[in-house]
């Protein structure tokens, strides 16, 4: 794959700059649609966990969102967020239309795409072929990419492969510690070798969640925030451990602080993070 120089990655707009300051009326009349893609080529790095936490974060900040799960035919994200999530095949034209053609018309302006393992490259390629990346370049769509890294050196190769597609995106490298991944310490030479090819908008660190708490949320089959609120998927009162709910709440708050730190809400909606 040919690599372009990627030194032109979008800067995050300054608070109060002309690009983000709009009247409320203007903001209502034209909220730029935002797409947040969560992906990695390696499996088991916790993409869906991050997509789930992201949906909770958006909901907690009153941002309406919809989600697309590319783990076809039966997606894990869909299991936890069935009301928000559609299972799609990003390489199918009809599903591409379902996502991209509705970006401007849908009431919900933020779309989260959870890309299945091994699907990041093909997904970005498909987005390029459909003209989506051109629309991003034209500033019609805000495109945020969360590239979830694994613990092996293969993740660095992934960065190089993804780089050509994300030059107009807000591209974040995500280190996910939720499943106790220990990341290799990149030595400066290795680091330079890979990172000179890509400019990222920043790094996001997902903290570890206590295993038992994680397992109980899995069993409950509900969003993290529903578990914290001690509710079942149908909204009835559940009987989850207070301690485990506390662990999940603290973990979600820490992720929220990470998203606040990179000003995710401002990128996709012009809002700032809430007080935690």
């Amino acid at each position, binding site marked *: 794959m040919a690599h372009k120089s990627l030194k032109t990655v979008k800067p995050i707009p300054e608070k109060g700059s002309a690009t983000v300051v709009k009247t409320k009326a203007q903001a209502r009349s034209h909220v730029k649609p935002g797409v947040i893609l969560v992906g990695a080529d390696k499996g088991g790095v916790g993409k869906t966990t991050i997509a789930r936490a992201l949906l909770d974060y958006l909901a907690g900040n009153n941002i309406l969102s919809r989600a697309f799960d590319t783990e076809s035919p039966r997606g894990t994200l869909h299991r936890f967020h069935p009301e928000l999530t559609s299972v799609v095949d990003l390489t199918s034209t009809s599903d591409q239309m379902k996502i991209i053609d509705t970006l401007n018309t849908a009431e919900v302006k933020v779309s989260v795409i959870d890309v299945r393992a091994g699907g990041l490259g093909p997904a970005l390629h498909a987005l390029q072929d459909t003209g989506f990346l051109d629309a991003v370049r034209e500033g019609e769509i805000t495109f945020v990419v969360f590239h979830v890294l694994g613990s092996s050196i293969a993740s660095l190769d992934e960065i190089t492969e993804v780089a050509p597609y994300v030059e107009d995106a807000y591209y974040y490298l995500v280190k996910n510690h939720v499943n106790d991944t220990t990341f290799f310490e990149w030595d400066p030479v290795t680091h330079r070798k890979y990172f000179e090819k890509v400019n990222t908008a920043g790094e996001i660190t997902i903290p570890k969640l*206590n295993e*038992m*708490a994680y397992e109980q949320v899995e069993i409950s089959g509900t969003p993290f925030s529903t578990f914290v609120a001690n509710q079942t998927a149908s909204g009835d009162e559940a009987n989850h*451990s*207070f*301690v*485990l*709910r*506390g*662990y999940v*709440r*603290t973990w979600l708050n820490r992720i929220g602080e990470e998203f606040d730190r990179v000003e995710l809400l401002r990128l996709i909606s012009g809002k700032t993070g809430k007080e935690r």
Partner: protein
Amino acid sequence: MRRRTIVFIACSPHARTGVSTTARLLTDYYLSRNIDVVGFDADPHEPFYGDLFPSHVRPIDLNDVRGQIALFDSLLIDDERPKIVDVWHRSYDKFFTMIKEIRFIEEAVKVGLEPIFLYHVDPSERSLSGALTLYRTWSDASLIAVHNEGASPLGAEQHEILSYYPARGKFVIGPLNAPAAKVLRDPNFSITRFLTAPPSDMSIVVRAALKYWISSAFTQFQSFELRAALEGLDCLR
């Protein structure tokens, strides 16, 4: 009248301040009045408090999630039974870090429980700063300063030292003479049994000293309990 469930958290950042003694006295105070108690001993290695009341007190390991669940989930049960936690000084930081993270005090207040810190004072500056931290962090919980005169004497300046503590009240546990203290250290000795049927072979002097010591503590607990009940009466609000 329904009794409000109280969660007593007996604690101190330092060893030998009388934390387990207070937990023990409080447990016996309730048991001697036929009020069931749920206790927890946060020293999983040598649970002296747990050993004294095997059918009422559970040793728990705060470094284990199952131990955390056994403790905090049980504490939140609003069943009118007083809950007593003996926070081992080595578990002190872990315990308070956890209750902050999981917002235990806030949840306890929300479900109608009354959390009370029984903070055991000593002459060190860290003792005072620890109490101030608890007070500032959890204004919803009451802080009672416990001064165990035998374990942690404050000396001639005790009134001045205690006046710096942001406490809603104070308990003073008096010193015991050596023979009486020795009896109390025996894990087979039960205060509740002693009160109902003092052993006939026990020295009269020791018996008198123990009775005085116990009744002094129980009187303070009763006075506290009555005051708390009065404060909780709707007609007096």
